[in-house]
């Protein structure tokens, strides 16, 4: 709940509330300036207080509405049962380890594959036409194919082929399916990034004597990737949640672990536990994304980019 933001740069480079001691330059803030800053501080305090009050009132009203609902006691024991939460927590965590491993491995594969496809799509020159078409077809197909159907086909269909040397492990197959779909998403993110770099950058690089490849590698891609960090992390968070879908092949992930207890007991608390754990896992990632974005904005504001 950030209501106030330190307004830097508004009143010259003075950052400590105008209370700067008369330094070497002998600057003493005027009475008017002190008044203005006092007023600003008071306004900020009042805004915070009002926001807090409004939040409190909203919270209390929602709480009362939920708790006084006629079905609340029943809902409470079905969704918020301490005993089941205690039983579910370790099992869900155990399942979560599978989600995390899948996220790490698939994440790396997706980034590499996505980058390759994006580069293939943005290659210039008539000789690369088939490569461009293939890459475009790949992204079109796998972005359009519903992930769940993709998983079904890969996890249950590929083993049916009985190919020698091809794994039947549902986790590996599920990871492959995830990588196929997500690399198509990520390729598009990368491509947008590559195309968003101003053509003058490439032209400048070429005029300095860099080859096409060098220009791409040293000038275009670094700028493109930096710009694409927020949407990439977005896809990564999304991938993290979708790793659970490999349970289609019988692997027990966090959600499936909850499923098992729910099926036995008909009590839904394990789902709540699994949901909260996923959220808890996503929050650090989201904060990290925000931090990266803010840092990049600061850099850009310093006149780095065009």
């Amino acid at each position, binding site marked *: 709940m950030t209501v106030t933001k330190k307004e830097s740069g508004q009143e010259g480079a003075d950052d400590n509330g105008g209370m700067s001691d008369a330094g070497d330059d002998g600057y003493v803030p005027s009475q008017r300036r002190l008044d203005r800053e006092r007023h600003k501080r008071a306004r900020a305090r009042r805004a915070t207080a009002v926001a807090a009050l409004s939040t409190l009132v909203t919270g209390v009203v*929602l709480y009362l509405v939920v708790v006084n609902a006629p079905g609340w006691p029943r809902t409470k024991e079905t969704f918020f049962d301490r005993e089941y939460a205690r039983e579910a927590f370790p099992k869900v965590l155990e399942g979560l380890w599978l989600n995390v491993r899948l996220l790490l491995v698939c994440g790396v594969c997706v980034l590499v594959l996505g980058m390759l496809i994006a580069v293939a799509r943005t290659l210039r020159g008539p000789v690369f036409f088939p490569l461009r078409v293939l890459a475009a077809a790949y992204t079109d197909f796998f972005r359009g194919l519903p992930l769940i159907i993709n998983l079904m086909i890969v996890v249950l269909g590929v083993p049916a082929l009985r190919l020698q040397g091809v794994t039947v492990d549902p986790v590996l197959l599920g990871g492959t399916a995830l990588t196929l779909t997500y690399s198509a998403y990520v390729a598009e993110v990368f491509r947008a990034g590559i195309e968003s770099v101003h053509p003058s950058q490439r032209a400048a690089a070429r005029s300095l004597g860099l080859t096409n490849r060098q220009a791409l590698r040293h000038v275009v891609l670094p700028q493109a990737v930096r710009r694409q960090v927020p949407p990439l992390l977005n896809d990564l968070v999304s991938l993290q949640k979708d790793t659970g879908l490999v349970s289609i*092949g019988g692997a027990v992930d966090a959600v499936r672990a909850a499923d098992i207890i729910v099926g036995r007991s008909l009590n839904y608390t394990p789902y709540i536990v699994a949901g909260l754990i996923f959220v808890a896992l996503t929050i650090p990632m989201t904060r990290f994304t925000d931090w990266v974005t803010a840092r990049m904005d600061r850099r850009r504001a310093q006149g780095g980019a065009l």
Partner: protein
Amino acid sequence: MHPAPRALRRAVAVTTTALLATALGCAPQPEEKAADTPSGAAGNTCAKGKLATKTSGKLTIATDEPAYEPWFKDDTPANGEGFESAVAYAVAQQLGYDKSAVVWQSVPFNKAFAPGEKTFDFDVNQVSISDERKQAVDFSSGYYDVRQAVIALKGTKAAKAKTVADLKSLKLGAQVGTTSLDYIDDLVKPAQEPAAYAKNDQAKSALKNGQVDAIVVDLPTAFYITAAEVTDATIVGQFENQGGTPEQFGLVLDKGSALTSCVTDAVDALRKDGTLDKLEQQWLSDAVDAPVLK
């Protein structure tokens, strides 16, 4: 125009926010009871055809879709064919609702147990009765004594298993939400984590593909799968009942439903007059015995 004083505007804003929150949460309403609740507090009269059903004069019965053989035939619960469809109609008859007064509804397994208003009078979906589940829903008395069986592909190591211990080293699978999975966890305690499938169809695919060595299903399903669906699979054997009491399928009703005792009486009556045995003979006669895994 003169703007309203700031404090006033703020107060209005806070109130609006609060009101909005109230509007979002639906205003509490008293739970509606069915109009014609039987006044049988003590006697609980199950007047034929006059029960406090969801739709008066009709009996709404739910099951999952697809509805599997041999419990239902052709995925059409309303045709009266298949064991559970036949049992449902027999119970309806017993309660005084003939075939035309029965309405079928498709309700996913999981949704049948969610709290809140039920849309059906009872649900018939091979649900095993357990004390733990009774915390969440009401059950009728059991209409079928079920045993769990192991299926494996012919000629595999799993197919040669004679005892429960022989299964320990194998990769086993079962459907989530079934007692089959509990049997694996509690009785076999295999070395590898068992695979848990959302649907039996996926368990069958996994067995065919060799992703699991064996799957556990209830015995009639096992007979149906090996006879019609995965013909190169065989029934390895059945488990003994755990804890001495036979596992039973029961009809599922809303927790505290006014119909529970009537439906239970109906099932008991059908058991007494041999109807249940007859239907079992008719629809599940294939499911004779399989060797018991000691």
